[in-house]
């Protein structure tokens, strides 16, 4: 009695592996077929340039003629390039101000918008509009608002007895005006993230806090804000990555000036690649920036896990 299976089942058992394999194959094939356009596009426009830029960074290359291999020359040059050092400094200053201002601002605005007030959708839309406004339009608007001679802002400052400011024209102020402009543009994004997170905070917790005699402010600070940690972590990482790659706003407003005061890393990369046609050098800058972003993100993630209440 070695076999208890009916004769009818035996062929089925025998053919099962090949059938399974066939099924597995067809599934997998269909799956690959479905994602192939994306894989192809990402491969072509994402991976190929990434690898190519890495090769380029070891060459002198004007992006068209065949380059010449120079080993680590470009990276060595970066170490002694005062303009690159200046661009790194500007990028760090920008990021260190932009990210906290944007996160805290978004949190406060989101808290204010997370209530039942008449016309709340209007306010929410109003906050989000800058996000979808094109950078060029934003820049043109800020250009006029902050015009040192004819701008509304200086007119207002003069009214209350403050002297006219140089804004985009003043090397000590230009970067901060860029911060202001980009916070205006990004705030709505942070608000949307926080609003979604706030709505997932259980009302039970807030009720319990209230019953324990907790004030509204303390409940916000001690209950809601800690529960928002995952959202905060996401925002900090996302905004930092974007801040380190700041380009559009600089390109359409100050072009890195006045006197290099707003030349950030990616803008400097652009100048090297597409104005000076130093493709190899620009690729080296890109790789240094990539490594910097990688390191910063990993640190942020590690730090974030320590303080996150998300998993509890």
């Amino acid at each position: 009695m070695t076999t208890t299976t009916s004769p009818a089942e035996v062929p089925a058992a025998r053919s099962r592996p090949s059938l399974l394999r066939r099924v597995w194959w067809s599934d997998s094939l269909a799956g690959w077929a479905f994602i192939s356009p994306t894989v192809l596009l990402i491969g072509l426009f994402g991976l190929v340039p990434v690898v190519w830029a890495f090769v380029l960074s070891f060459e002198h290359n004007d992006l068209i003629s065949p380059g010449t291999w120079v080993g680590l020359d470009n990276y060595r040059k970066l170490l002694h390039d005062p303009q690159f050092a200046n661009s790194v400094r500007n990028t760090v200053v920008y990021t260190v101000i932009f990210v906290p201002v944007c996160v805290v601002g978004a949190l406060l605005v989101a808290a204010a918008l997370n209530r039942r007030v008449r016309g709340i959708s209007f306010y929410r839309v109003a906050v989000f509009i800058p996000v979808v406004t094109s950078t060029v339009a934003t820049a043109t608007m800020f250009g006029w608002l902050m015009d040192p001679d004819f701008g509304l802002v200086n007119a207002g400052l003069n009214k209350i007895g403050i002297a006219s400011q140089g804004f985009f024209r003043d090397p000590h102020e230009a970067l901060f005006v860029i911060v202001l402009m980009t916070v205006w543009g990004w705030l709505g994004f942070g608000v949307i993230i926080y609003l979604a997170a706030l709505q997932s905070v259980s009302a039970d917790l807030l009720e319990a806090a209230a019953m324990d005699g907790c004030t509204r402010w303390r409940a916000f600070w001690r209950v809601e804000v800690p529960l928002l940690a995952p959202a905060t972590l996401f925002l900090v990482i996302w905004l930092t990555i974007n801040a380190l790659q700041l380009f559009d706003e600089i390109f359409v407003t100050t072009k890195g000036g006045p006197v290099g005061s707003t030349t950030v890393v990616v803008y400097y990369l652009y100048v090297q690649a597409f104005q000076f046609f130093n493709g190899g050098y620009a690729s080296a800058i890109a790789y240094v920036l990539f490594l910097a972003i990688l390191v910063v993100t990993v640190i942020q993630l590690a730090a974030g896990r320590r303080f996150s209440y998300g998993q509890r």
Partner: protein
Amino acid sequence: MASRTRRVTALAAGALAALSLAACSGGSGGGSSTPSQSGGVVEITMSHGYTDVEDKAITAQVAAWNKSNPNIQVKLVFNGGNDGALQKTLAGMAAGSMPDIAYEYGSSMAALAGRPQVVDLTSKVNDPAFNWKDFYSFERDAATSDGKVYGIPALVDNLALVYNKKLFDAAGVSYPTDTWTWDDFRAAAKKLTDASTKQYGWAYVADGSEDTTWRWLAMLWQAGGDLVTADGTKSAFNSPAGLRATQLLHDMAVTDKSVYLDQGNGNYLNLFNSGKIAMMWTGPWDLSSINADVSYGVQILPAAGGAHSSIAGPDNWVLFNNGAAREQAAWTFLSWLTSAQTHGAFTMATGDLPTRESETKLDSYTGYLAKYPGDAVFVLNLTNVTKARPNTKTYPQVSQAIGSQMQGVLIGQTSPQDALDAAAQQADAALASGQ
């Protein structure tokens, strides 16, 4: 004349696309060999960035050509705006698909010259029938790199002094003359400035770009200076002439505060239109943007004791190598397009300036001047352009060094001598590296 529209992010996008494309097929040379000959008919493509009236005029001219030349059929392709023309061309080159003729900025010449895909026109232009010497000398210089000709002038402009007559009348200042000196210019600008109404005598583009640099170059040349040494290996602008030019900028912008500093967004033109700026150094492309109710005059630039030098930015038609038949056809068409007759008709329709001296001797020229009175001085001013910016790969770096330092001078942050020292040091480093 919208061929000089301001740059927008599209340029960046285009440039990045160029990089990806360049990356994809890294440096595969040679032209595309799509057969575009059938039964003796050669089809060629010409890419350009003309819009508005210029677009209409070139389209009409090409249509007329195609009708009377069945054997050479020309297809016009819009390049999306001339600001991105070079990036687009380079991407096409890397991908092995190029037009036969393309419109390129004069400043792009260094990046194009000497490439195997770009046709060396030297022997072609030396054909006496083409009359190459008829083009203004600075145009020929700008189309030449290392002694070889790579372009045929397509459009030319130059800087002259455009002023608002009403503001001069109101301030009791007599109009600029062709004997004006820097002192006259500075004094007038000061008188035309009124801090209380925020009216400025002059406007200067202070974004640190080539826009900042080329106006300063005109001043450098007026003072008798030079940008680089004759052999092009070292900077020559850190000189007494350079200092005089820079000092004038400082004195007017910082001491007199008679200069509106434009941030590169083109506000100066709106402010000129609204009567807040009395004078600007600009080219014919801005004339069509001046409101009809603004009565303006045009005068040549002031002198620093010597010549009333101006600067021009001639743009070129560049030929690409897509096989001998197409190259020959492209040249035949281009010789016709850039002849005095054809280009004369083009200027009549558009108000562009003549590129050949003989165009000013055509019968239609008086009609042209009557139709575009503002252009008369700009045409005359072409003879004040005696020098061209060097066609070298390092020029953009030299330009950036000067532009950025002049920005510092204009806002009163850097002294003229310090600015020149810093700019010269940076320029010399760039010239020495030869990159």
